[in-house]
């Protein structure tokens, strides 16, 4: 290890294949504490696959990922929340039959206590802790303007609202690194502008570092300190937003693939 500070997230030479498809091919980069890092690339570049790898849903063929210097590949999926990793899902993975409030309360699972016996018998100050947790969750919902619908069943809500519930649920875990997979999907122009502030506030007020996957270039480029570009499973560029935007291979990847960058 060199003298530099240990990065919060350190992805090293990660390779993931599905049968014949190489979804990630030796990807390496790191995210420093306190940073907002953008992760971009055309459809199918491997961004979500990388998220799934970091959150232990997918098994990497080789390489390593360290959080705060500690390797995570021997952790089970349910262990990553304890390590300080929180995330949202591109295609929504909410608890559909539960209320908005309950979804957010489950977000706090890893940092709260209780077991079958204490919860069934209401032992060990469980009621007091539950009240405190609910107040905290309601404050969070208020901040994300979800308090009016705290009691509504999640499955019945519009897509954009569900995305916000996912964000609230992830924040409720108080992660050190928050991974957002296309959080601005389905937002209109004004909402994207507003969302920029939301992202910055998460970093500045909650001191949460962010890894942001987005197709909205304007959003990524204006909030990120650092941008990593993937194409066909390979990292093709990394740098500040200005550096990346003028990088010829990045321009090629986007123009060459013929993808609409504002899609999704």
């Amino acid at each position, binding site marked *: 290890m060199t003298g530099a500070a240990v990065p919060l997230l350190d992805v090293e030479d990660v390779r993931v294949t599905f049968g014949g498809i190489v979804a990630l091919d030796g990807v390496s980069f790191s995210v420093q504490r306190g940073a907002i890092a953008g992760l971009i690339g055309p459809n199918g570049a491997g961004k979500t696959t990388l998220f799934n790898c970091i*959150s232990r*849903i997918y098994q990497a063929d080789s390489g390593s990922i360290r959080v705060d210097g500690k390797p995570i590949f021997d952790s*089970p*999926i*349910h*262990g*990553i*929340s*304890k390590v300080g990793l929180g*995330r949202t*899902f591109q295609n929504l*993975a*909410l*608890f*559909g*039959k*539960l209320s908005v409030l*309950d979804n957010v*309360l*489950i*977000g706090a*699972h*890893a*940092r*709260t*206590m*209780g*077991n*079958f016996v204490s*919860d*069934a*018998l*209401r032992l060990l100050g*469980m009621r007091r802790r*539950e009240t405190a*947790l609910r107040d905290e969750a309601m404050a969070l919902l208020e901040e994300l303007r979800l308090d*009016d*619908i*705290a*009691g*509504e069943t999640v499955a019945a809500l519009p897509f954009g609202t569900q995305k916000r519930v996912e964000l609230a*649920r992830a924040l409720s*875990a108080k992660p050190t690194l928050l991974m957002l997979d296309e959080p601005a999907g389905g937002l209109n122009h004004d909402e994207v502008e507003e969302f920029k502030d939301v992202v910055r506030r998460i970093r500045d007020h909650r001191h949460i570092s962010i890894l942001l996957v987005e197709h909205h270039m304007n959003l990524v480029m204006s909030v990120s300190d650092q941008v990593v570009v993937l194409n066909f499973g390979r990292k093709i560029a990394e740098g500040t937003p200005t550096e990346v935007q003028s990088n010829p291979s990045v321009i090629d990847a986007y123009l060459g693939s013929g993808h609409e960058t504002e899609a999704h």
Partner: protein
Amino acid sequence: MTAETQVTAQSVDPERRIAGLTSGGWRCAATAIAILVAVVLPWTLGSFQTFQITLVLFYAIAILGLNILTGFNGQFSLGHSAFFAIGAYTTAILVERYGVSTYLTIPVAGGLGFAAGFLFGFPALRLSGLYLALATFALSVATPQLLKYNHFEDFTGGVQGINLLKDSAPFDLPFSVDQWWYYVTLAITLFAFWMARNLINSRTGRAIMAIRDNPIAAATMGVNTALYKTLTFGVSALLTAVAGALSAIVVEYVAPDSFTFVLSVYFLIGLVIGGVGWIPGAVIGGAFVLYVPNLAEGISTGLAGVLFGVIILLVIYLMPSGAAGLVRLGITHLRRRLDRDNNKA
């Protein structure tokens, strides 16, 4: 604020009062009334009817157990007759063969039920949906045969089963035997429902339901899904085994053919009729599976099964979410009407 947002805000406002009571207050009142009725009921009934409502109660406990597993955790089971049998035989064997106090056998039956459910929960982890239904079905088909098996006969009494005699009320309490065991069953039922409600409204309960709705997301939130699923299986089987123990005591008899897979199907019917994922529904489901087959029998002995089937179809057709849906619908209607009246005033 526009009128529209006000309405949505109101519909979830826990402070909102209807006829002076909040929704939590109404729930308390309904529970208190139900308990009061349950306490008074045996004094208005003969001993056979008291015996019957005791059966409703332990069916309710068994269905509650199934509801926690299937309704809240999303794991299907056609094997709960096996856990019920474990509870019943534990009590019968301990009382008849070892002279253990009847009351003591109830927690022992629960403990064994938990162990059996927890262990069965492991293979269940690898199965989902229809495959789990098949595996649990196999469990309930195997149970009566094992109970009849001649090498276990010294224990289980084989095909004959075991007769036992229930204790009469202690300390010269002024209860008949049937009344006494009704109250014991009622106390255990209330305790079971109280625990189930606490569990569902807690961190553990939310984790259980999160697994049902989205296991990957639940794991990402830090829920050890394998552990929670096996423990939920254990708790579910515990409740059902306690119900089985009570059945052995109350009916004073256990035999293999009382615990066929038909009993599992009855639990499932009770679950669906009461409302999947609604705790009080188990009582309604219990009453349904006890009284409706009798009712059908009363109408026509020859066609009792057909009638029972038709009644089930009708009920499901008329209230697709079981009693739970009906209650919810009633509350919504009442609320709307009150809102309308308030707006007029």
